[in-house]
């Protein structure tokens, strides 16, 4: 159990990333592709937080905890992840705006049809 747990979170992060890439490559709809990209993004959050975890520790938030009374997990990776979650959402919005624009210009959001249109 313990030996498996030592790599399981990393493996899950790798799996989530790969399945997102698979969806991205086989997608027939750009909106679906943007959703798959969001899945890929979440893999990076899982990986970062898994790196920062410490067994038996708690969050480094001292509003209801005396400093030093309990071991705490790594705050640096949490700060990186936290900003990226919100910024990632606006980047998703930008990609969705591009999708709307493509559908206006070409009348389709299927990448294969778009390739045919280009000639």
């Amino acid at each position: 159990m313990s030996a498996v747990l030592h790599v399981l979170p990393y493996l899950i992060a790798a799996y989530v990333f790969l399945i997102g890439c698979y969806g991205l490559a086989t997608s027939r709809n750009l909106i679906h592709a943007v959703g798959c990209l969001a899945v890929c993004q979440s893999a990076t959050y899982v990986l970062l937080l898994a790196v920062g975890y410490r067994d038996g520790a708690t969050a480094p938030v001292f509003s209801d905890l005396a400093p030093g009374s309990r071991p705490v997990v790594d705050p640096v990776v949490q700060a990186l992840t936290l900003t990226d979650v919100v910024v990632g959402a606006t980047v998703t919005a930008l990609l969705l705006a591009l999708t709307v624009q493509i559908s206006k210009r070409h009348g389709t959001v299927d990448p294969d049809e778009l390739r045919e249109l280009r000639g």
Partner: protein
Amino acid sequence: MSRRARLWLVLLGGSGLAALLVAACLRLPAFGGARHPYGDRAVAAALARRTANTIASVNFDQRAFDTMGEMSILFAAVLGCVVLLRQARDEHRDPPRPAEVAAPVRRYALSTLPVALVTGLYVIAHGQLSPGGGFQGGVVAATALHLMYLGADYAALERVRPVEAYEIADALSAAAYLVLGFAGVLAGTAFLANTLLPLGTFNTLSSGGTVPLLNAAIGMEVACAVVVLLARFLDQAVEIVEENVRENGKNGDNGTNGMDGKNGENGENGE
């Protein structure tokens, strides 16, 4: 390249990547290990600056410059959306009929709106004390405003939300972050250095020097950015109609009945 050939190429590349990733995972430090040199130093530094939430301290003090980069990505992404989704010359606005919303749902939306807004402000204000901060609270406050659209209709949302004001506030709060950074330079230390204000009492709203101010600037920036972003998307989805699409839509039926047609089929083909 045919679909089949492309799928094989993806599987080939993907399995190679998978092998590399698994090999890398096996060599990473074990999950849950006790050695976190950066984390321990960050906690010590946060406590020295009397910031109760270490994550806020990392974001707005120790790595405030990095957060400025994130903020500019956010700003640029919103700017890109505004440009991409603006009303084109061959488009015009056609306000939809008011939606009929069941009375209890509307009452729920109208009474939850202020509660959610105040919760968002609470999350922003207590960013340097308890879990939360400008990024999270800003999104909550902006989402709360859109209960007007969900529980009533788009016209009602437009009455309480002048988009231009939010665009200006977005730019102002981004500027406020930079000004706070340069204030450090003028005071004789470094850009975004947390030496400007007294550190205050640990675990109160005024503790942590410039952390609460930067936090509030980010909160306002994120809230306004999300409102502007959703305003553009709602304009496109609800109000803006292209000339030829509108005519065809009005000649036939109202266009919504056929809407499962094309994309639905594309979706099914892909499975």
